[in-house]
């Protein structure tokens, strides 16, 4: 259970999420993939807070919590993002009668 192992697992999660958000047609699948990427970033932040940051430790012990504070903010922003995202999904479902991204072409021409 080394630091690198956490980073590699987070990288794998992030890349799976990236593939999902690029290659799926359903808006909800894309939103779920974005959540995967948020989680991967949170893992790296918390792992770095635990294993790294020796320079900041000298002046203030509470600086080892900076990574966790960032993770709290990311979780909050993710909650706001999913609320807005689902609002947009429902608006799109009402206007297009579908949540297929390939059919959302109103802005193309």
């Amino acid at each position, binding site marked *: *259970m080394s*630091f*690198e*192992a*956490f*980073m*590699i*697992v987070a*990288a*794998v*999660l992030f*890349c*799976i999420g*990236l*593939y999902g958000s690029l*290659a*799926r*047609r*359903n808006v*909800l*699948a894309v*939103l*779920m*993939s974005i*959540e995967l990427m948020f*989680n991967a970033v*949170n*893992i790296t932040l*918390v792992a770095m*807070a*635990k*294993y*790294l*940051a*020796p320079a900041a*430790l000298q002046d203030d*012990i*509470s600086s*080892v*919590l900076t990574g*966790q*504070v960032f*993770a*709290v903010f990311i*979780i909050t*922003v*993710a*909650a*706001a*993002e*999913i*609320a*807005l995202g*689902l*609002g947009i999904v*429902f608006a799109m479902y009402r206007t297009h009668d*579908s*949540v*297929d991204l*390939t059919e959302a072409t109103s802005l193309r021409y």
Partner: protein
Amino acid sequence: MLFQDVVFWMLSVMAIGGALGVVLAPDLFRAALLLIVVFIAVAGFFVLLSAEFLAVVQVLIYVGAIAILIIFAVMLTRDVQRGNLPNRLQIPAVVFSALLLAALVTVAVDTKWEFLPADQQARVELVQTNSVTTLTGELLTEEGITGPEEQAEVQEAGLADLLISDYVLPFEAVSVLLLAALIGALVLVRPSPGAEKG
């Protein structure tokens, strides 16, 4: 250490397998359920990384709110019957993600990370779990923190204290953001005034 390693590998398999299921499952509803598995595995990672408070928040917000909202959305849109189809960008997406993965893994392995010295590790873990436990003087002495000044310092360092002292401005900004997102979502889902009813 061995037990932690076993837990780590189990959580990794859970998280990566679940994530693959989320993007590849043909049924969107199953994908949403597998997403919950990934969230719980990530909460387990947070416990392993001595971030208990974040693990609880992860379960409350991700599993309790976000995953349930997504499942509601899956149920409310009829496209769930068509399944989770790929678009035309599938091959470029695979290539791009694989290249990024290779780059990230190379960086993670090759970088010379500046690790904490081993004697500081116990102190750091103590501060990081501080946000959910009350640290008594005896516990701190057991962990090797004996100086009264140092004890006071560790006892005062907590996630909640940080959020309302050093990070109070981002904290307030995030509350405004949440409010704005709430109002925005309400405006988006409200039927437009000109639209016919029914």
